[in-house]
C-alpha cells in the first residue's frame, strides 16, 4: 500500500513540477520475434515514469497519461529475455514490441518428445525438461541423459555413470553446472559427475564443442545444467519428491523452496538425500553396491532487469560401494572372473557400504554479477571456487584397512567475464575472458604410491562468438577461442619406470632429486589450444529446421593421461600415462535436419568427427610382480575417426496416443592401425508408446522398449601369460557382451490439493521382464550381470 502511495505521489509530483500536458497514449502489441505470434501477459514498463501494464490475451497493450519526452521502455515476459528500448513520445504513439521467446514455453508444443532445441543455434542440441528430470529423481544424472539420442553412459555399476556423447566421455565432455565448469576429477573412468540430479531445473546437451563460451576442448560435447526460475514478485513456492524403489530397497527424498521478495530479491534452498542397499541382478544380489548420497544447495541474490547478482553454494557427498566381486587380486583372478560368468562373491542383501568403495565430496561456491547497458548489451562477471575430495578405499588388510588407497584433493578457482552485445536484433556478439588456477594434492598418508601427482594448473582463455540473422529464416554463427594451459607437477617416478619409459633420455631436465629407487621430478608443460566454430541455421516455423555446424576443437591432456603410473588396485590393472602426450585436435561436422508435418515429425542428425592425436587408454600387455601378473593399460595417441548418426521420429496417432522412435549409431576407428576404437557405444534403438490425457488427472503413461545391439567392432583381445596355468591364455577383455532388450513402463497422475498445491503419484518399472544382460560400456560387465527389475514409486508434491 505504502509503495502504491509513493508511486502515486511520485507521478503527481512529476506532473506538478513540470506542469506540462501529459495525456498522450502509447499503444501497440507484443509479438514473438520468431513467428509473430502475439504474446499475452508481457509486462510493458516505462522507466522514469514508473508506469507499467500487462499485455492482454491478444498481446495488446496500452499506456496512457504520458508526457512528451524520451523514455526507457522495458518489456518482459516470463519466457523471454527482457528487452530495453528507448522511446520518443511526441504525441499518441503506436509501437509494436518484439520479444524473443525462450524455449521453456516451446516445450508444450515441442515436436520431438521431451527434447527441444536451445542455447546454440547451429549445433545439434537437445534438452531434458523438468518433468523428465523428476522422473529420474532417484537415478543418476548419467541415466537421465540417456533419454537423449546419441548420449550413452560409461558406467561402473549402477551408481557411477559417466555421460558419453557421440562415443566420447571424460575430459571430452564438459559439465556446466549453472555456469560453473565442474572440476571433479572427470579424468577417471570410474569417476561420476559430482552432481545431484535433483538440483537441476533443466539440462541441455550440446553434441560438440561449438559452445565456445564454455570452453574450447569439449570434443565430445557440453552438458549444461540450468536453474529454472520464476521471477514473479513476492511468492513462495517449492516441491518435494519422494521415491521408493525395490531394487536396492531404499529411496530418496528431495525438496526445494524458493522465496522471491520485492525488488528482485530471492532465496532458494534445495536438499536431497538418497540411500540404497545392495542392488540386485535377476539371479543374485550384487554384493556391495549400495550408495548414500547427500546434496545441499543455497542460492540468494537480487535479479533486476538492468543488474543483479547472485551467490550460490552447493555441497555434494556420495559414499558409493563398488561391487565386491570386481576387486580382483591379479590376472588369474581376472581370467577366472571372465570365464566363470558368475560373480566370485555373492552375499546376502545388506545396506552396509563396505570396501571397496569411494567417497567423494564436492563444494562449489559461486558469485555472479551482471549489468545491462542500455542499447549495448549485458556484462557478466563470475567467480567460482570448487573443492573436490576423493577417497578410494580398497580391500586393504590389517592396520591400513580404513585408510584409503587414493586420497586426492582438487581445488579450483575460476574467474571469468563476458560481454554480450545484443542490442541489435540481427547481429549479436559475445566475447569473454577466463582465468583459472587449480591445485591437486595427493595425500601421502595412504601409504600407496600416488596414481595422480601433486600439480598446479593454470588456464587462460579468450573467446568471441557472433551470430548474424540475415533473414527471417537464415542465421549464421561463428566463433573463435584460444586457451593456454600450463601444468606444473611434482611427481615421484620409480627409477625403473623412468628408464623403461625412456624419460631418462627425453626428460632428464625434470629430475629434481634422486632417492635411489625413486626420482622426484618436476614436469612443466604448456599447451596452446585454438578452437573455432562456424554454422548455419535455416528455419521455417513449424515445418523445417536445418542446421549445419563445423567445429575445430583442441584439448590439452589431463593429469591422468600424462602422469598415471601405478596399480589401480580395485581394477587390478596398471595404468600408465605418457609425458609425451600432447593436445588432441578434432574437426567435427554435424548436420541436423528436422521436418514436421501435421501429425508427425522426424529428425536426422549425422556427424563426422576426425581427431588427430586422439588419446586413448587400452590394454596392451601384462606386467609381472610378486603378487602375480597384472594387465597393463597404457595411454597412447593416434588418429581416429568417429562417424555416426542419431535419428528420431515422433507420431501423434490420436490426441492421446503417441509413439516415439530413436536410433543411434556410432563407429569409431583408429585410422593409423585400422582397428576399431575401444569403448564405443553399441547401436541402439528405442521405441516408446505413450498415452496422455489431461482430463484423467493429467494421466501420463508409457511403455518403452530399448534394444541394444552387440558391439561388433572392437579392438582384439589380448593374450597374457597366466602364472597359475603356466601358459599364454586369451584374455577376452575386449569382447563385448550379447545384445539385449529391456522394457520400461511408467505411469503418473496428478491431484489438485489446493489452488497452488498439486500431488503427483507415479510408478516406474525398469527392466520389466527382469532380463539378464550385460552392457559393453559397464566396466563391471566382466564380473556380474546388470540390474534386474526395479519398481519405483514416486510422490511429487508441488506447492
Amino acid at each position, binding site marked *: 500500500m505504502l509503495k502504491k502511495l509513493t508511486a502515486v505521489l511520485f507521478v503527481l509530483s512529476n506532473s506538478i513540477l513540470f506542469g506540462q500536458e501529459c495525456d498522450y497514449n502509447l499503444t501497440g502489441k507484443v509479438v514473438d520475434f520468431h513467428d509473430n505470434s502475439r504474446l499475452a501477459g508481457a509486462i510493458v514498463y516505462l522507466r522514469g515514469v514508473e508506469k507499467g501494464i500487462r499485455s492482454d490475451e491478444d498481446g495488446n497493450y496500452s499506456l496512457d497519461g504520458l508526457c512528451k519526452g524520451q523514455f526507457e521502455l522495458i518489456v518482459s515476459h516470463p519466457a523471454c529475455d527482457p528487452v530495453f528500448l528507448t522511446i520518443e513520445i511526441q504525441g499518441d504513439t503506436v509501437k509494436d514490441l518484439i520479444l524473443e521467446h525462450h524455449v521453456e514455453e516451446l516445450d508444450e508444443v515441442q515436436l520431438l518428445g521431451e527434447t527441444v532445441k536451445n542455447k546454440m543455434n547451429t549445433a545439434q542440441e537437445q534438452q531434458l525438461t523438468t518433468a523428465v528430470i523428476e522422473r529420474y529423481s532417484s537415478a543418476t544424472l548419467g541415466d537421465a541423459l540417456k533419454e537423449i539420442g546419441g548420449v550413452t553412459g560409461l558406467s561402473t555399476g549402477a551408481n557411477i555413470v559417466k555421460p558419453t556423447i557421440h562415443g566420447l566421455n571424460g575430459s571430452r565432455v564438459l559439465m556446466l553446472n549453472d555456469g560453473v565448469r565442474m572440476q571433479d576429477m572427470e579424468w577417471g573412468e570410474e569417476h561420476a559427475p559430482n552432481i545431484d540430479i535433483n538440483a537441476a531445473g533443466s539440462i541441455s546437451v550440446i553434441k560438440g564443442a561449438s559452445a565456445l563460451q564454455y570452453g574450447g576442448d569439449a570434443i565430445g560435447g557440453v552438458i549444461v545444467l540450468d536453474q529454472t526460475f520464476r521471477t514473479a514478485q513476492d511468492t513462495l513456492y517449492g516441491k518435494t519428491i519422494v521415491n521408493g524403489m525395490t531394487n536396492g530397497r531404499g529411496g530418496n527424498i528431495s525438496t526445494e523452496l524458493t522465496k522471491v521478495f520485492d525488488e528482485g530479491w530471492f532465496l532458494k534452498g534445495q536438499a536431497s538425500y538418497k540411500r540404497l542397499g545392495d542392488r540386485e541382478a535377476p539371479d543374485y544380489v550384487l554384493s556391495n553396491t549400495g550408495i548414500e548420497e547427500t546434496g545441499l544447495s543455497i542460492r540468494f541474490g537480487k535479479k533486476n532487469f538492468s543488474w543483479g547478482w547472485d551467490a550460490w553454494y552447493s555441497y555434494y557427498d556420495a559414499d558409493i560401494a563398488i561391487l565386491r566381486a570386481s576387486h580382483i587380486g591379479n590376472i588369474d583372478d581376472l581370467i577366472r572372473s571372465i570365464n566363470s560368468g558368475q560373480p566370485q562373491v555373492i552375499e546376502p542383501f545388506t545396506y552396509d557400504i563396505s570396501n571397496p568403495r569411494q567417497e567423494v565430496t564436492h563444494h562449489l561456491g559461486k558469485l555472479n554479477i551482471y549489468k545491462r547497458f542500455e542499447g549495448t548489451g549485458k556484462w557478466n562477471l563470475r567467480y567460482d571456487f570448487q573443492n573436490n575430495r576423493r577417497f578410494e578405499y580398497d580391500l586393504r588388510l590389517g592396520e591400513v584397512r580404513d585408510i584409503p588407497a587414493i586420497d586426492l584433493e582438487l581445488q579450483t578457482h575460476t574467474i571469468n567475464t563476458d560481454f554480450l552485445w545484443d542490442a541489435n536484433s540481427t547481429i549479436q556478439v559475445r566475447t569473454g575472458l577466463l582465468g583459472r588456477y587449480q591445485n591437486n594434492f595427493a595425500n601421502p598418508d595412504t*601409504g600407496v604410491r600416488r596414481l595422480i601427482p601433486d600439480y598446479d594448473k593454470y588456464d587462460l582463455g579468450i573467446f568471441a562468438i557472433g551470430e548474424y540473422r540475415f533473414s527471417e529464416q537464415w542465421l549464421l554463427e561463428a566463433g573463435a577461442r584460444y586457451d593456454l594451459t600450463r601444468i606444473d607437477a611434482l611427481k615421484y617416478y620409480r627409477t625403473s619406470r623412468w628408464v623403461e619409459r625412456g624419460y631418462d633420455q627425453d626428460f632428464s631436465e625434470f629430475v629434481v632429486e634422486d632417492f635411489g629407487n625413486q626420482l622426484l621430478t618436476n614436469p612443466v608443460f604448456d599447451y596452446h589450444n585454438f578452437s573455432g566454430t562456424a554454422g548455419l541455421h535455416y528455419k521455417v516455423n513449424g515445418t523445417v529446421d536445418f542446421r549445419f555446424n563445423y567445429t575445430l576443437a583442441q584439448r590439452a591432456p589431463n593429469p591422468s593421461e600424462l602422469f598415471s603410473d601405478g596399480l589401480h588396485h580395485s581394477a587390478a590393472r596398471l595404468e600408465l600415462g605418457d609425458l609425451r602426450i600432447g593436445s588432441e585436435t578434432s574437426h567435427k561436422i554435424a548436420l541436423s535436419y528436422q521436418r514436421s508435418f501435421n501429425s508427425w515429425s522426424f529428425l536426422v542428425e549425422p556427424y563426422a568427427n576426425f581427431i588427430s592425436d586422439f588419446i586413448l587408454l587400452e590394454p596392451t600387455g601384462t606386467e609381472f610382480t610378486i603378487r602375480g601378473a597384472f594387465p597393463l593399460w597404457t595411454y597412447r595417441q593416434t588418429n581416429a575417426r568417429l562417424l555416426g548418426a542419431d535419428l528420431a521420429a515422433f507420431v501423434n496417432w490420436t490426441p492421446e496416443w503417441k509413439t516415439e522412435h530413436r536410433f543411434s549409431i556410432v563407429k569409431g576407428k583408429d585410422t593409423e592401425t585400422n582397428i576399431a576404437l575401444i569403448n564405443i557405444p553399441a547401436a541402439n534403438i528405442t521405441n516408446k508408446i505413450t498415452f496422455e490425457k489431461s482430463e484423467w488427472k493429467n494421466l501420463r503413461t508409457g511403455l518403452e522398449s530399448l534394444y541394444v545391439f552387440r558391439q561388433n567392432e572392437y579392438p582384439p583381445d589380448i593374450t597374457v601369460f597366466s*602364472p597359475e596355468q603356466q601358459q599364454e591364455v586369451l584374455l577376452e577383455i575386449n569382447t563385448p557382451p550379447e545384445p539385449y532388450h529391456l522394457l520400461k513402463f511408467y505411469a503418473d497422475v496428478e491431484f489438485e490439493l489446493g489452488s497452488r498445491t498439486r500431488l503427483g503419484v507415479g510408478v516406474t518399472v525398469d527392466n520389466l521382464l527382469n532380463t539378464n544382460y550385460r552392457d559393453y560400456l559397464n566396466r563391471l560387465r566382466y564380473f556380474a550381470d546388470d540390474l534386474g527389475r526395479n519398481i519405483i514409486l514416486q510422490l511429487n508434491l508441488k506447492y
Partner: protein
Amino acid sequence: MVSAIKSLKTIITLATGILIIACGNDDEIPEIVNEEEVITTVNLTLTPQGGGTSIIVQSQDLDGDGPNPPVISVSGNLTSFTTYEGSILILNETENPAENITEEVEEEDEEHQFFYTSTGSIENIVYNDMDSDGNPVGLSFLLTTGEPGSATLAVTLRHEPVKPNDGSLTNAGGETDIAQTFNITVD
C-alpha cells in the same frame, strides 16, 4: 592524482599478495611414499630329509609394481623319490636392512595361509605346521618328488582366507599377497 596512483599501487600489491597466497604451495616438495608391506622376495629352502644339499628357490622383484619382472632363481635340481623339508622366507628388501615379513605372518597366522600346488614330477606337498586354531599355515611343509622329469611349483600367499578351507584357492578366497610359479627339474 598522486593518491589515485597510490591506491592503484595498493590494489596491485594486494592482488599480487592474494595471488601469491593462492598459489603459495607451489614449490612445496611432496612427501615421498615408500610403500609398506611390500613383498619383494620369496625364498623357499628345500632340505632333503636325512641330510644333503638344500635347494634354494627364489623370486625377487626389487621394483615392486614397477616394470621389471621378478628375477627367478633355482639353485639346483631335486632328487627323485625324495622327501624335502620345506620352509619359506618372505622379505621386503626395499628397506635397509631388509624387513622379515615371515615374522608378521607368524604373528597373524590365523589370517594367513600359503598354498602349494604342483604339476609333473612333484608327487605331493603337505603342510607341516598349524596355527593356534589347528589349521594349516604353510610356513613349513613337506615336499615329495616322484619320477625324474620336469615339474612346476606354485606358491600363493593369501591374506584373510576362509579358514578352515578345502585347500583350494577358490574355496579359500582372501587377498593374494604372493603368487609365484617356479619351474623345477627332478633328476
